């Protein structure tokens, strides 16, 4: 059932609305569990669109097997998706730096607060992100170490390829996930693919993980999908490879492949000169789980991340 999470009036002939799709069990259940799936906080990250669709579709095929509430929020930043903009175009700010917001505050605060309030009471929230348009990622869960004890059991069920502990800002203060976890609502950040794209196999993989979680929570009586355990890593076991020169990056390895220390994973070219390219060499062996896609690079741009060590 389509429900309005929040709405407000825009200046000219339009109302801003954020919706959720609440799917409830067909039979009466006392204190049903509740899983919330949110996506589209960043309007240029579209991987969650397919996941939202596919979860709803699979449930609709056998609604009698659902034993809890599944709330699907496909677009927390609907105007961002409409404009292919990471930020919320209404106030040109990254929504995922505005949580938890304030119910009596200004527009930005109220949007964030309304979302948090709507998600409160969930047994688990899955905050689905894609990468940006610049790098491609394998399906992974990112979580802050401070919440790891409570979140790891859920993270292992997601069918992601990797769990990255204490990763980037996506799990830090002022994000939706951090705010929900502080409130005691377990929230996982799932990241995969790349911006402006949908990778269907990745989506199917995570949807299997979502039904695995539903089975674990006793909310799905259908067959438990076959899933695998993700590799678990900390920041110390990830090698960041950044560009030390502006130019055009050409990848020379496949994404999601193992590389050996000393392998050339790409080159940075100078299109003017046609001179010798700068070869990008790995220092350690491991899984190349992040790969630069957007060719134009500046000093400091991420070219690759490699998961090293035993996993």
């Amino acid at each position, binding site marked *: 059932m389509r429900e309005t999470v929040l709405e*407000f*009036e*825009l*200046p*000219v*002939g339009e109302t*801003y609305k954020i919706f959720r799709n609440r799917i409830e069990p067909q039979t009466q259940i006392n204190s049903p569990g509740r899983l919330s799936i949110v996506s589209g906080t960043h309007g240029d990250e579209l991987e969650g669109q397919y996941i939202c669709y596919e979860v709803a579709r699979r449930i609709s095929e056998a609604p009698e097997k659902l034993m809890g509430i599944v709330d699907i929020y496909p677009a927390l930043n609907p105007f961002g998706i409409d404009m292919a903009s*990471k*930020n919320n175009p*209404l*106030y*040109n*700010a*990254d929504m995922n*730096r*505005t*949580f938890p917001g304030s119910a009596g*505050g*200004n*527009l930005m605060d*109220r949007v964030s607060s309304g979302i948090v309030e709507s998600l409160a009471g969930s047994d688990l929230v899955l905050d689905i992100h894609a990468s*940006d348009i*610049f790098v491609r990622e394998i399906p992974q869960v990112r979580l802050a170490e401070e919440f790891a004890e409570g979140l790891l059991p859920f993270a292992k069920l997601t069918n992601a390829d990797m769990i990255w502990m204490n990763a980037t800002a996506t799990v830090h*203060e*002022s994000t939706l996930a*951090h705010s929900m976890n502080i409130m005691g609502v377990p929230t996982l950040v799932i990241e995969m693919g790349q911006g402006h794209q949908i990778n269907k196999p990745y989506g199917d993989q995570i949807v299997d993980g979502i039904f695995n979680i539903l089975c674990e929570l006793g909310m799905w009586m259908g067959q438990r999908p076959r899933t695998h355990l993700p590799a678990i890593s900390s920041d110390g076991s990830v090698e960041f490879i*950044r560009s030390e*020169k*502006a*130019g*055009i990056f050409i990848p020379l390895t496949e994404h999601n492949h193992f590389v050996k220390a000393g392998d050339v994973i790409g080159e940075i070219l100078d299109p003017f000169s046609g001179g010798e390219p700068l070869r990008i060499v790995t220092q350690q062996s491991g899984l190349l789980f992040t790969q630069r896609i*957007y060719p*134009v*690079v*500046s*000093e*400091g*741009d*991420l070219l690759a991340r490699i998961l090293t060590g035993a996993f």
Partner: protein
Amino acid sequence: MEREDIYTFKSTYRQDMKVKGFRFGSGQRAACIVGPTRGRENQQLYICGRLVKTLEELEKSGAIANDKEILVIPCANYYAFNLENNFFGVKNLDINRCFPGKTGGEPISRLAGGIYDRIKEYTYTIQFTSFFERSECVPHVRMMETEHTNSSLANLFGLPYVVVRRPLPIDTTTMNYNLQTESGNAFTIFTKETENIDEKAAKGAVSAVLRFLTRMGIIRYECHSGFISHMLYEDDLTDVYAGRGGLFRSKVVCGEDVRYGTKMAEILDPFDGSLREEITASTDGIVFFAHNSAMINQYETAFRMIHRLHE
């Protein structure tokens, strides 16, 4: 006056962006003034340019105190100015949400870190920035409240108001918060305008900085004593939100002393001109902040008032 390149950002197809610093005097690193990080902060850039000109004249006349050095960084992001864009780079990120930055990090993090590492050497730092919202405000000095905060120093600018903000998670990556956390002597000056140049307000801002430098014994400069600042916490401001979206027609200006019930603005239906809402003052007080765009969304901050304060 000595010029230096604080940080150089290299681009494939644009001229390198050299963040320029202008040094006056020599010896103890006494004060640093930092201009806009956002490309629409024209007023802030204008103020910093005028400061450089004035300090150059003062230095020539021997008015910089012995063993005192002043650094002015008039602009931290001129790439954005040349595109009339607010934020930095292809990722469209706000530099003032990337402090303290990181050597070896993302391009914007390196830029922020390069500036931050240089300015934190100074005893006092003064930043010129603006609000996210399309607005104007009464000139004031702002500080984040940290364990080091000494708001009495902020009085020495002689501006009408000193505002202390209790930091939220969203603030923790601003320049002011990080400097304030480290040293306790970081001030941010908000002037009336942002995109348009207001000559009177710019002159007032330049005078405020010179007054502060004089009072701290960094320069010798005869100037008016300014105001005995009224100190307030940001939380104490009374926010007035738009109850409807529409065309916004303000009836009051920043700094105006209004009474309870005063008509402050009208919100009109843009299609038929009918009145959607009349915003009236919810308290006696001074208009501290005013929305200044022709359009307003429901729940957007229309005004912020200093409760029960009169001229």
